[in-house]
């Protein structure tokens, strides 16, 4: 019984701490993507495509139909009138800020090396409002960038590959243009893909480099309540008539991965509880078999079947009670311990400590799992004890 109790304590504890870790990393991931690519992105304009159908009657008259075909929606690349779109979406309650961005492919050349990248032409203040760019600056400063019309902000991995630092200059090529830019600052998001390829420059510089005098590639939107993004995106899509994606959809595969990981961790850790449940099941059965005489005697004195079953259910309940309490305590302790462990990591995101994020739900889930398993484990022996026929038991013992 003590073994089963220990098993349940550890099972519940591990359940809570593994869920806390996974949620911690998920949280960090969400923070990171919201800090870089934002909550909502408004991209290409939707152009309803009409399918022209000519139906002929017997008389030879012609009737024309226009059918809108949702699946074959066509898009016109980019946002032609960003100011109008921004003006209309800023009316929405949950929208915090919006930043128009011009995007393009570029080649960079330092004295020593060449590299490919993506340029984001931004209005600095707008973009600071929709991302965590300010906090991501590793070297240099945004003040320098603001005052340098030909300044750029470069990802730290790209800077490493090009072997350049703040203050040095690189040549940037796009289409048939070529300009020299100075590195004002270097950023690190933790997402290595971005740190390797992304370059920010002023909107006007990007316009002339990419030869895009009008419109922008997309608008990045930040919102107050990130969990409301899906609905907001739908509204924006209809209001602005532009193809709009919330972060949940953009990072769908990642979110799904986290979900799967959490589920599989829950199942794996639950097996600890299940094994303890099995142990409890067999222990209880053994006690029942060992105590048949006492059970028969109690029955002969007027104790009912459920009185007898309850004795064994109580044992289960006591194990459950302490298992759940100590397990939650252990879970909290492990979670705290883990959060103090240093863990430098970067790749999809950067962090110095193990990330944990506990919610009451983890505790509830763990306790519910323990309740179900312990109940199943003690119900069968308890029922068995209650169903013993006293006459049979006594006859078997006395003869």
């Amino acid at each position, binding site marked *: 019984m003590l073994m089963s109790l220990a098993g349940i304590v550890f099972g519940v504890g591990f359940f809570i701490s593994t869920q806390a870790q996974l949620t911690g990393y998920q949280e960090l991931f969400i923070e990171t993507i919201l800090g870089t690519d934002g909550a909502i992105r408004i991209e290409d304009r939707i152009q309803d495509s009409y399918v022209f159908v000519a139906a002929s009657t017997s008389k030879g008259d012609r009737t024309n139909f226009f059918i809108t075909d949702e699946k074959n929606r066509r898009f016109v690349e980019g946002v032609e009138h960003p100011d109008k779109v921004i003006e209309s979406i800023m009316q929405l309650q949950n929208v915090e800020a919006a930043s128009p961005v011009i995007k393009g492919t570029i080649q960079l050349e330092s004295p020593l090396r060449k590299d490919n990248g993506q340029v984001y032409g931004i209005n600095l203040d707008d973009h600071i409002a929709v991302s965590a760019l300010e906090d991501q600056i590793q070297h240099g400063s945004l003040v320098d960038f603001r005052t340098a019309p030909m300044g750029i902000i470069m990802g730290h991995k790209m800077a490493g590959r090009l072997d350049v630092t703040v203050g040095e200059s690189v040549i940037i090529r796009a289409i048939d243009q070529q300009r020299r830019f100075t590195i004002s600052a270097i950023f690190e998001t933790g997402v290595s893909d971005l740190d390797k390829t992304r370059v920010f420059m002023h909107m006007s510089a990007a316009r002339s480099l990419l030869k895009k005098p009008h419109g922008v590639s997309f608008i990045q939107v930040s919102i107050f309540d990130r969990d409301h993004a899906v609905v907001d995106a739908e509204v924006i899509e209809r209001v602005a008539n532009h193809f709009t994606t919330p972060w949940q959809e953009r990072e769908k595969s990642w979110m799904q991965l986290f979900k799967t990981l959490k589920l599989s961790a829950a199942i794996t850790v639950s097996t600890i509880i299940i094994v303890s449940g099995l142990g409890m099941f067999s222990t209880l059965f053994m006690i029942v078999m060992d105590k048949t005489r*006492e059970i028969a005697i109690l029955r*002969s004195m*007027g104790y009912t*079947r459920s*009185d007898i079953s309850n004795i064994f259910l109580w044992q289960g309940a006591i194990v459950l009670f302490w298992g759940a309490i100590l397990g939650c305590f252990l879970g909290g302790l492990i979670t705290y311990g883990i959060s103090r462990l240093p863990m430098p990591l970067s790749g999809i995101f950067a962090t110095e400590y193990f990330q944990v994020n506990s919610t009451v739900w983890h505790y509830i889930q763990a306790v519910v799992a323990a309740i179900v398993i312990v109940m199943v484990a003690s119900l069968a022996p308890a029922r068995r004890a209650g169903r013993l026929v*006293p*006459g049979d038991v*006594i006859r078997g013992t006395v003869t």
Partner: protein
Amino acid sequence: MSETTDLEGKSIALECRDLHKHLGEREMRVHVLRGVNLKLYQGEVSAIVGPSGCGKSTLLYLLGLLDRQDSGQILINGEEVPPDKDGAHTRTRGEHIGFVFQFHFLIPEFSAAENVMLPMRKLGRLADQEMEDRARSLLSDVGLGDKTHRLPSQLSGGEQQRVAIARSLANLPSVLLADEPTGNLDVKNSLMVFQSLTQLATEKGQAVLIVTHNPELAGRCDRILRMQDGQFID
């Protein structure tokens, strides 16, 4: 309606009519009780005697509602006990029947007094203090007034059996059934246990049925019932 008094005016505490019981499965199936009729009167001590294997214990378990008959009726205080209702059986057992087994069957983890209090706890008619007092008085009735706090393992076989008797009387049952209560005891202890049983019963007007192999003890009873091959013989 069943009559609860006999022609001679004695009250019937327990009655059974044409009880049949088989034991064992398939080829091993044995017709153990072959139509048993019996009346137990208040304040009377009856003994069942008969060769080993004739069905004495089987009958006692049926009368004590610890088992189910295949056919026949059992009436307690004039009311028929439905043969298939475990709940009703359990309630009747707690209220009306006291059982003493061949082995004492005390709960080893509980003291003598606590063992005696078990049936009272279930019935729940007395407060804690009353139960304790009653347990003490029952134990002193069987001569164990000074050993109420001992565990069964700290008592002799005869003492254990006397605790079991005290326990069987705890709820003042109308019927007391004892299956070879003195089977494991020496002559002196046998007599003591027997006297405890019969004395209390006659004082409080209970019906007592004792199965015994001891002809001397049987001779001290008000009535002797002889059993052979699952039936009473005259």
